[in-house]
């Protein structure tokens, strides 16, 4: 590697310079500007210490609900990741696509799905009320803590399933076999061999899930109700309704600092050891479930996943085809009827509004932004992992920095974008690329987290062998790294894609009426009264689900033969 000195050094500098420049321009600059504005107005108006204390009170709840949500998500995700990386079964690909879909759902829509299932007049409550002749719905879901936890698990299980599952399927089975042969029990082998080898991926997934739960906003607001508040909710309230920008700024900094500390700790724990693993044939460890125990485990886990992740979406889709005519004055009984009206109505601009969104063009806008997000974040993420790989010690901070956008308050960053990109050529009004750029800020940490464990486990001997045999550095990358990174790359692409497709926070700040996305259109319908508007919001959400499902299916299809199975 030292043979091509100067150009190699330049190349390596570019590796970290490009992601850093991107972060500086699109993250630190807007964030700095808005925080500076907040600081200026803090100096002008004296900031009461009491209001600061009061505003900081959500910190404790924010932390423990995130920790609890993460534990629950791991409890569901890890066993699923094991089963999905070790067994072949019918409908596996469908289930894997379906379990990814929650990730794209805008909160309003996810809540609509959960309400259709568990709400005061959801299927479950109606059934129980009828069965036992109850007057009141027995299951309370809205405005409860377990509602929050449930929806967090719904959203984030796919992170564990994909990130850990991908690593597990590439794990060399001979390590575990050796341990077993040397007399270790199954449990011992798992504890002493497999889990330590999987640790980087498990840690990465845990970090991502925790940060998502830590900065949770929509779920807390809608499912938790007014009695629960996280930092992000407090930031929103201080900014939008109390106009206390200084306080909002301080809270945003606190949230960012927490993210920094958490990511730093993660990076410390994670980065100490690097275990090279000989790459294995994809699908080598896959087999059919044979024993009854295995079959029961598979069946049980899939039912659980279907119940927690798929059922709410199914309820949503079902509801988009159903009219519920309430029986006169009776709050608990309805006559359902099949209808396609919500869908046909989507294509009609019934009141000649200038803001009418044709579903096809909203879908195309969404797809275009999502594809751009995939490109941006894959490039940035790949550069970042290689920069860290080549200079572990001094560039660990890049790892931390690139993760920070996950912990940035969306409200604060959105306002930052608005006041920073105010002039040509980077004007919020005329530069539509700001939307995929904002999405890429959130997606890149996912790319890094999926690629890093895989890259670190590639044995150096493979690259050395290639070099010795005369391969140029570019060829070494093409022949050694690239094939081995293909699967984590795919996982990363799917995350980037879904993040962009469902994202609403930044889009609502940056969207222009000419290029509305599907989530923007959904919000437009659901913020008006009227059965048709509600129905159309559900129909549009179903379209979003189908669009995303198809895209994931196609993305996975892009893999070469033989890799499709995992």
């Amino acid at each position, binding site marked *: 590697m030292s043979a091509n000195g100067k150009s190699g050094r330049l190349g390596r500098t570019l590796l970290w310079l490009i992601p850093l420049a991107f972060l500086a321009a699109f993250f630190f600059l807007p964030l700095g500007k808005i925080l500076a504005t907040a600081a200026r107005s803090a100096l002008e108006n004296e900031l009461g210490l009491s209001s600061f204390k009061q505003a900081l009170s959500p910190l404790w709840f924010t932390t423990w609900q995130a920790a609890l949500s993460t534990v629950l998500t791991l409890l569901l995700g890890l066993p699923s990741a094991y089963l999905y990386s070790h067994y072949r079964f019918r409908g596996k690909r469908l289930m894997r696509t379906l379990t990814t879909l929650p990730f794209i759902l805008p909160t309003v829509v996810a809540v609509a799905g959960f*309400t259709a299932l568990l709400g005061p007049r959801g299927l479950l409550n109606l059934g129980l009320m009828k069965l036992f002749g109850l007057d009141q719905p027995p299951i309370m879901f*809205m405005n409860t803590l377990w509602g929050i936890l449930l929806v967090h698990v719904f959203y984030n299980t796919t992170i564990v399933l994909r990130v850990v599952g991908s690593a597990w399927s590439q794990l060399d089975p001979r390590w575990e076999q050796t341990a077993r042969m040397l007399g270790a029990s199954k449990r011992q082998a798992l504890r002493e061999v497999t889990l330590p080898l999987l640790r980087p991926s498990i840690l990465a997934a845990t970090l991502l899930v925790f940060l998502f739960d830590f900065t949770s906003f929509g779920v807390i607001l809608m499912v938790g109700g007014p009695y629960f508040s996280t930092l992000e909710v407090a930031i929103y309230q201080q900014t939008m*309704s109390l106009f206390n920008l200084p306080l909002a700024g301080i809270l945003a900094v606190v949230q960012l600092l927490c993210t920094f500390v958490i990511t730093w700790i993660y990076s410390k724990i994670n980065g100490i050891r690097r275990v090279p693993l000989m790459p294995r044939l994809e699908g080598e460890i896959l087999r059919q479930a044979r024993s009854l125990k295995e079959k029961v485990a598979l069946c049980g886990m899939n039912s659980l996943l279907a119940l927690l992740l798929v059922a709410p979406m199914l309820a949503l889709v079902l509801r988009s085809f159903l009219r519920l005519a*309430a029986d006169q004055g009776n709050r608990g009984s309805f006559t359902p009827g099949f209808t396609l009206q919500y869908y046909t109505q989507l294509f009609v601009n019934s009141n000649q509004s*200038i803001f009418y969104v044709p579903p096809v063009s909203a879908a195309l806008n969404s797809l275009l932004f999502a594809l751009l997000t995939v490109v941006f974040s894959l490039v940035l993420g790949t550069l970042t992992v290689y920069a860290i790989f080549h200079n572990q010690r001094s560039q660990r901070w890049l790892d931390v920095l690139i993760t920070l956008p996950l912990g940035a308050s969306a409200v604060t960053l959105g306002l930052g974008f608005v006041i920073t990109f*105010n002039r040509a050529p980077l004007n919020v*009004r005329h530069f539509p690329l700001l939307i995929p750029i904002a999405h890429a800020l959130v997606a890149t940490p996912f790319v890094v987290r999926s690629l890093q464990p895989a890259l670190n486990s590639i044995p150096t001997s493979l690259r050395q062998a290639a070099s010795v045999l005369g391969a140029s550095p570019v060829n070494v990358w093409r022949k050694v790294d*690239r094939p081995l990174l293909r699967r984590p790359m795919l996982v990363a692409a799917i995350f980037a894609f879904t993040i962009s497709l469902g994202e609403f926070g930044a889009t609502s700040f940056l969207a222009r009426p000419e290029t509305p996305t599907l989530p923007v259109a959904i919000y437009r319908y659901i913020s008006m009264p009227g059965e048709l508007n509600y129905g159309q919001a559900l129909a549009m959400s179903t379209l979003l689900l189908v669009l995303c499902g198809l895209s994931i299916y196609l993305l996975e299809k892009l893999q070469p033969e033989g890799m499709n199975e995992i």
Partner: protein
Amino acid sequence: MKNKLILIFIVVSFALASCQAKSIPTDEPVTLTVMTHDSFAASADVIAAFEQANNVKLVFLKSGDAGAALNRAILSKGSPQADVLYGVDNTLLSRALDEGIYESYESPLLAKIPTEFKMDASNSALPVDYGDVCINYDKAFFAAHNLAIPQTLTDLTEPKYKGLLVVENPTNSSTGLAFLFATIAEYGAEGYIAYWQQLKENGLVIVNDWNTAYYTNFSASSGHGPQPMALSYASSPPVEVIYAATPLDDAPTASLVGKNMCFRQIEFVGILKGTQHRELAEKFVDFMLSVQFQEDMPLQMFMYPVNPDASLPDVFIKYTQTPDHPATLDPAVIAANRDQWLNDWTEAILH
């Protein structure tokens, strides 16, 4: 893989090219940018007529709810991102005026508009429309249970209405805030907390946003929730009729319009200080106050026109009740006390 990359590259460059192409104007009409809240809407032909008559291209910059749009305007004060700001209402007016984001403009059409709507003597903010935030009720439920319709705010604390009302959190939602102001108008700054405590004891349900209140909790919406009374707008009943899946011969809901039960929101438009297109901006303000726009508005934004010459659509007249004594508060009083009221309310009711 290489082919894929090339494909992606083509897609991206095509996308970039199409974005570029869009921003290059062909016959050079001047662009006038209007910042609004998300609920702004208008008919395509009404907007097109204005654009043609003035050789202008209107760009609407939707910026969240009214508070978010105002925040954005204040933060970009000096180098405004738009020429006109529409959507600041009487609960936010003082803040907008104090920050000095507007240029004053005495539109000739102001002469027609009743004085009760003109809240800014300097004419920096000109009234465009108004609407009442009211509690909607499920007509079928009240009929089936032979329940009397509540006539006053105090009625709502009676045991027979226990657990039947859902409202929005005033710290998160503009409708919730409007209702908080209505209770302050009725009971005063000293009495409103006690009233809310009584409501709470009577099983009041509080949720964070209008969506949840209307679609999850309200029994007369298509969400079929458990509460037959929900805080929404006086114009929601006609909207239920207009957007019904099957034609309705009557609205499923109606509003409680007793004294001080509804809060009247008035929405304003103003020219942003520092605009490069002052003359066009004036024309647009005139346009918003003209009969053409004012008659288009009710069915687009579900608000009432302030111009008395504008006639209302039949469905509005038929299904909207107009409160005789809507609650109002002086915008200056709101601006001075808003934070304190909200903090006190949060302390007493939520904690």
